[in-house]
């Protein structure tokens, strides 16, 4: 590399700073703590605390702790009981939820099925100004409340994923009485939930202060106060961790991870992203309409090298269009193979004549997008593909998505808040989806059947067959499933969540005490 990047400059600056002052102890070295206060720094500001007004990860890290859902998605990917202790399907389209008894809102009011109905209705309400989640529960027809401890959710069609939907944004439970008395503005400024922490104060763009809910139904959290700060620049965020000013930071890129690991008092902890980084393909555009060409493109990518060199090992090689950790992921499939000789053979068989194949990439919208595009370009050129990288703006990308006119391939980071192929893959690749560039009758039939079936065995078989078709036609070329890393003080015992939640409930967060 001849060009000096900003990152290099920072490294040199860091090295210089360290060299200039030898022998000074690193500040954060403690392996245990007596702290009663947890300080978290994330990369962006909190905009809304009303859970129906936002899907931003900076907001949901907090709102999932002020509020509870009926079901709770754990960092291990499993769906656990939340405010509902159990749920079961009645017939094909009714899900009955038995509610946890004795739960109180932060203001002392009791939690009942009336709150459940109110929350779901409000989540679906398009007349709520600024509602950003009204499509999440779109399969819901109505909610019935036969008694205060039971809520029955009726769906328009069979919906196997309803309990999962209720476990993520759009599904947070909010207090009917309080919201109606203070109005939307008052609720957003001073939220009341049932969650493990309750609201204390909020200075926009500076910090949010929350305190432990002493009566939390799943046990009081292991600290008295939670302080959330926004530190937008990465280097100062890392410095704040190394100095011990904060206990936990989000969004640590692979190269900064080394600094955090090199410091005696801090560690890096990551969760596999709940989705994949793929090169989506405009399969309508020759020669990308030829499955042999797409197979060759996949075979020519050295994914191991991308993981190792560009991600410093912080990622895994995918084996299909289903992310590791999602429902129906098939662990028996081998990782996507590298075989340049076979790639050349398939290109020849396809009658490829050196037509230009364009990768359109943003620079920095997705982590590593441009360097990865350049690496892939070089790998494709090695097997004789006339590959070209074109950098475009985020806004152009958004426009291409709307108009469905990508020139060839582009980066996409499909994910599902339901941890299911239906939300992750079928939502985008299905007919009418935003990445609908390739159709196959059998693939379509299977995808639709799986969407509306409440039989998980049937769904599993459908996704197995769809995987085979996928690996022949490659409507996406999956490249990597990266880790999303966090920096922690060593005295913090915490497991990160693949869907960017900040799970600080007792089962997942502990300060290591002396």
């Amino acid at each position, binding site marked *: 590399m001849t060009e000096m990047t900003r990152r290099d400059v*920072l490294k040199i600056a860091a090295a210089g700073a360290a060299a200039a002052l030898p022998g000074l102890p690193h500040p954060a070295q403690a392996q245990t703590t007596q702290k009663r206060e947890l300080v978290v720094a994330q990369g962006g500001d909190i905009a809304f605390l009303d859970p129906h007004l936002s899907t931003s990860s900076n907001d949901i890290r907090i709102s999932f702790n002020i509020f509870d859902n009926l079901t709770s998605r754990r960092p291990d990917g499993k769906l656990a009981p939340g405010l509902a202790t159990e749920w079961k399907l009645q017939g094909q389209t009714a899900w009955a939820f038995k509610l946890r008894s004795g739960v109180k809102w932060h203001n002392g009011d009791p939690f009942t099925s009336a709150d459940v109905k109110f929350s779901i209705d409000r989540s679906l309400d398009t007349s709520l100004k600024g509602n950003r989640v009204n499509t999440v529960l779109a399969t819901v027809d109505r909610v019935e409340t036969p008694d205060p401890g039971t809520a029955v959710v009726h769906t328009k069609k069979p919906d196997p994923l309803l309990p999962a939907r209720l476990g993520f944004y759009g599904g947070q439970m909010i207090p009917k009485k309080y919201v109606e008395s203070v109005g939307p503005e008052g609720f957003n400024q001073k939220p009341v939930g049932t969650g493990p922490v309750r609201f204390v104060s909020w200075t926009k763009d500076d910090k949010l202060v929350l305190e432990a809910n002493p009566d939390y139904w799943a046990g009081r959290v292991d600290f008295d106060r939670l302080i959330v700060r926004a530190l937008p620049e990465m280097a*100062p965020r890392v410095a704040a961790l190394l100095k011990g000013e904060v206990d936990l930071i989000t969004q640590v890129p692979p190269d900064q991870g080394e600094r955090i690991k090199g410091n005696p008092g801090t560690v890096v902890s990551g969760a596999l992203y709940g989705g994949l980084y793929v090169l989506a393909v405009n399969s309508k555009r020759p020669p990308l309409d030829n499955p042999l060409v797409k197979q060759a493109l996949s075979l020519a990518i050295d994914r191991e090298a991308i993981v190792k060199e560009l991600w410093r090992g912080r990622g895994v090689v995918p084996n299909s269009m289903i992310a590791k950790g999602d429902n129906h992921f098939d662990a028996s499939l081998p990782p996507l193979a590298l075989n340049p000789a076979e790639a050349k053979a398939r290109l020849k068989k396809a009658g490829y004549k050196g037509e230009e194949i364009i990768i359109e990439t943003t620079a920095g919208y997705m982590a590593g997008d441009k360097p990865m595009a350049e690496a892939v370009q070089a790998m494709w050129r090695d097997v004789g593909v006339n590959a070209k990288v074109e950098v475009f703006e985020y806004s152009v990308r958004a426009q291409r998505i709307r108009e469905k006119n990508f020139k060839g391939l582009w980066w996409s980071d499909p994910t599902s808040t339901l941890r299911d192929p239906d939300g992750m893959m079928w939502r985008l690749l299905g007919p009418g989806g935003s990445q609908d560039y390739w159709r196959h009758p059998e693939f379509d039939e299977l995808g639709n059947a799986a969407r509306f079936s409440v039989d998980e065995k049937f769904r599993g078989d459908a996704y197995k067959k769809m995987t085979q078709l996928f690996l022949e036609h490659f409507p996406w070329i999956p490249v990597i499933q990266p880790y999303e890393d966090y920096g922690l003080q060593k005295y913090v015992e915490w497991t990160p969540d693949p869907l960017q939640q900040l799970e600080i409930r007792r089962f997942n967060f502990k300060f290591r005490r002396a």
Partner: protein
Amino acid sequence: MRGLLPFLASRLLRAGIALWLVSTVVFVVMRLSGDPVPLLLPSDAPQSEFARVRAELGLDRPLPVQYAVFLGHVLHGDFGQSIHFRQAAFRVVVGYLPATFELGLAAFTLALLVALPIGIVSAVKRNSVIDQATMGLALVGQSAPTFFIGILLILIVSLNLGLLPTSGREGWQSLVLPALTLGAFAMASIARLTRSAVLEVLRADYIRTARAKGVTEALVVAKHTLKNAAVPIVTITGLQFGTLLGGAVVTETVFAWPGIGRLAIQSIYNRDYPVVQCTVFVSAVLFIVINFCVDLIYGLLDPRVRSS
């Protein structure tokens, strides 16, 4: 003061034109840079939802109509509703101003307190070790990018020496590093300009006359030199105060300082048109007011400016 009224009138007219141009440019550039709606909705939202939100924000109307509505509202001091905060953009921006003023004033005071003595001493002790060292440092201060100085200070002062907080806004301690970072450029340019202004005056005939009369060197500098060197120093100082507003964008982001510079950056990322427009407008007003004040002070210091 004769001619003050026409002077004020022409200044106001120019300020009005400048503000109109600034707001128009921002309006056009922001609209060219992309659509805020995909950032507000879940990635799986259907097209109808995009249309609904676009209509909710008034983005479905043709650009000239949006522009006319925008200008009409601006004339009434209304910059519209923030897309991100969902409250009046002007209220949002005003809420962030105190932090920026605090930082700007601290940076400016620090710059003056350090730069003026250094500049004068360097000029009087020309080519001495002090002169060369401080002017070398000033060159670094002027050429190093703000984010670099900021991060370097965080790493050395805060992390390695453990002296001051890395970021945030809590107590005077957290003000020191950002003020130093923001003031570095102004400090360096004021020091260099003070030095050359003082040098220039020291060469003048009346200084030689004063020395010939036997006036002590200290009095020569304090009484005869500084007064005459003040005009260019005031000019550059005023202009530097304006550029502090620009530097605040980087400094506030590096140090997580909740002022309008950081607000501007966040709002650009969020494609929050109303807030970006309002931030730029308010900054432009501040810049114009500062320049206006500098012009007035200039007139007071140098009668020749008034008559021309």
